[in-house]
């Protein structure tokens, strides 16, 4: 979603921002894990974005800009500060899982446990959760994710890889329990 060098008006903002409403809300609740907090987050995001719309650079990615505002708003919120303080990222490399014949994926297909998967995503540290959601749910390119998270492309790839690994581990644990 690139905005050409047109005049940035409130009308333009509405046209650009409202189609993103549902997905932004979904992302907000995935981050905040609470409906009221998600609504506050989205409301604040739209207010900030409208206020700062004149500073938005036409020709750049509007969707990434909106997600960036949402995410920064979340990270400075009470919940956001709490969760980001507890995880350390991009530091340790945990050993690879041995891929046996019974991979979590194949079991997942068999059981088709939607809820299990959601619980696994929910359990991920917020930095893994967000990069995974941006890639798998929002289907953003690595470049867009880099813009949204304000991190280099290389970090996007390594963080995404770790997030997927963490998801597999989490799924495996849940499947063992189940």
């Amino acid at each position, binding site marked *: 979603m690139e905005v050409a060098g047109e005049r940035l*008006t*409130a*009308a333009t*903002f*509405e046209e650009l*921002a*409202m189609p993103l*409403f*549902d997905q932004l*809300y*979904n992302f*907000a*609740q*995935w981050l905040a894990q609470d*409906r009221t907090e*998600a*609504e506050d987050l*989205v*409301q604040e995001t*739209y*207010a900030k974005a*409208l206020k700062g719309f004149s500073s938005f650079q036409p020709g750049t990615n509007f969707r990434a800009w909106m997600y960036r505002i949402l995410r920064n708003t979340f990270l400075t919120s009470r919940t956001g500060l709490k969760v980001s303080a507890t995880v350390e990222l991009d530091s340790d490399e945990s050993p*690879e899982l041995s*891929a046996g014949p019974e*991979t*979590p*994926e*194949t079991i*997942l*297909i068999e059981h088709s446990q*939607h809820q299990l*998967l*959601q619980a696994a*995503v929910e359990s991920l540290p917020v930095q893994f959760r967000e990069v*995974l*959601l941006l*890639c*798998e*749910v929002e*289907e953003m*390119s*690595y470049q867009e994710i880099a813009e949204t998270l304000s991190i280099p492309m290389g970090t996007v*790839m390594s963080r*995404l*890889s770790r997030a*997927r690994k963490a*998801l*597999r581990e989490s799924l495996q644990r849940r499947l063992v329990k189940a």
Partner: protein
Amino acid sequence: MDHWTAKLETYLDGELSASEMRDLDAHLRGCPSCAADVLSRLQTKRAVHSAGKRYRPNSEFRERIRKSIAARPERSPMRLWLGASAAVALLLIATFIAMSARQQQLQRQQTLSEIADLHVATLASANPVDVISTDRHTVKPWFQGKIPFTFSLPELQDSGFTLVGGRVMYLGQAPGAELIYQVRKHQISVFIFQGRSVGRELGKSLQSQKELSFNIENWSQDGLRYFVIGDASSDDIRNLADLLRKAQ
């Protein structure tokens, strides 16, 4: 994790270059292990994609946000109200201007009528002048102490005009000088008043009017208001007015 496994994720995310994509495609056709890996990863990817679309905002909240960012309507009630006020104000101003213009027109008409009346009264009077003299050097000093201003009178030699005399009269309680001139049997009155008491509604420059079929010239000069009125031709009235103007 071998060379190919490392690229599987990037492959599925569609972020490999076209040539790398072709190479990996070729490898997958010959490597069942990698093919199975890709399949399971793809399934997870799809499962996360659908499971990730989990939360939906309610429509009330959506509407609230939409309203909060909606472009301000072109005409808000406040603007409408302002617009209406401006229109009313404009109408009032226009009415006021029209009324004061009409008022000024009436005042102008009234002043000219009174000047004409004074002239007629002079013509009808048995004693039209209080100082009888054809000499401006006699007439002018006569007014000294009788009116609160002074003026100059023109040299009339070869002009066809003769000075008959002068007197003091009043217009709207303001004292003024009336000078009587003659040209070819026609009597002409020249009225001089202080500009601040008479003729403020009249223009500063020379104006020609007709009142009761008399020709009238009036103008303002050096704080004094001059009227020249008579039944002589408009050219004669104009010539006398010019002589007086040049004398000041």
